[in-house]
């Protein structure tokens, strides 16, 4: 077992590659996500995308913000070798929407806005609302875990080197 701090720093690139792959999949093959969550209606990039390029010991960061921001600059950064370090996502199932950010290096979830839950008007309401929120969080974490698990199986396979990387490159340059 690797030391935790060493493992965090040495493999944080995996989280950034995961987010890069996720963006590529969102744009090119979103329907395949339904195998990980049959309730999924859509998973879209929200209002923030951060990319970083650390090529040749220099760090370049591209941040795209705004509800309807064009992601072209991000695609250009990808073609230069950048990876996504943070992504804001919107996940929809039927009438429910989750909005949240994922950080590549930690896989931490931040800025999470859950679908509407019942109001807490009396102390008796708390337990019901807690259970509802726990269910909604579990659903989101289940999706993230399943997507990451799919990615990591792909990443340790030959398919990543032989096919996926060239597909991502082709997608980034053709847009």
């Amino acid at each position, binding site marked *: 077992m690797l030391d935790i701090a060493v493992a965090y720093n040495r493999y944080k690139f995996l989280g950034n590659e995961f987010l890069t792959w996720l963006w590529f999949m969102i744009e090119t093959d979103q329907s395949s996500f339904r195998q990980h969550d049959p309730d999924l209606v859509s998973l879209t990039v929200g209002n923030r995308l951060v990319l970083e390029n650390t090529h040749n010991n220099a760090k370049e960061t591209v941040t795209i913000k705004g509800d309807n921001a064009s992601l072209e600059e991000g695609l250009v950064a*990808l073609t230069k070798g950048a990876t996504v370090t943070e992504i804001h996502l919107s996940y929809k199932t039927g009438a429910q929407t989750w909005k949240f950010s994922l*950080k590549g290096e930690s896989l931490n*979830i931040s800025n999470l806005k859950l679908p509407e839950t019942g109001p807490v008007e009396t102390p008796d309401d*708390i337990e019901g609302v807690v*259970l509802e929120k*726990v269910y909604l969080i579990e659903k989101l974490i289940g999706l993230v875990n399943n997507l990451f698990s799919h990615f990591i199986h792909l990443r340790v396979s030959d398919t990543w080197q032989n096919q996926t990387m060239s597909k991502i490159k082709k997608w980034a340059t053709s847009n």
Partner: protein
Amino acid sequence: MGLLSSRMSITRYQVTGQLDGSVHETVYQGLKQHAIPKIEDDGAEASVGWTSFETPYAPDFEGYSFVFGTDMVFALRIDKKSIPPKLIQKHYALYVAKRLADTGRHYLSGNEKKSIKDHVVNTLVQRIPATPNVYDLVWKYDTASLWFFSNLKAANEALETLFIKSFNLPLIRLFPYTTADRMAGLSDKERDVLRKLEKNRPEE
């Protein structure tokens, strides 16, 4: 930002190992033993302990009130005294001026200045109330997972330390490597490949 907030941050953990005996009773004892003190220690700059989710300013775990359905929900509270630097500066200047006037000298030695600064900080710590910060957590014992509702480094470190002290169970933070290694169901062969992975670039 907690479980009932409109926006929340979550750090995910895997809980390794199992509790001996009754889960709820063991957790209750751990929470009670390491609860945040009800009476503030005037001299302490910070205190860290467990508190209850519903009444974070009056910790109460009686009747297993931390059990919600199949999960356990409680909170970490960190009470910290923050003395504004300008306040230290002001009291330090006043104290130095008084010492110079009392002794009739024109300057103080380095040791005297340090001793005055320590005294000022200690005096202010006694007078300033601690600011409480409450971070909720959900412990899903059945699946050995725990969600901590903060991404702050100091709060996460405090959680990891207090958790093992209270329940004798280590927490493994789930970041890319640990999630891949422990949660993705990789075979031994795939795990070997994972350990040898190096950063790739789409253009290479």
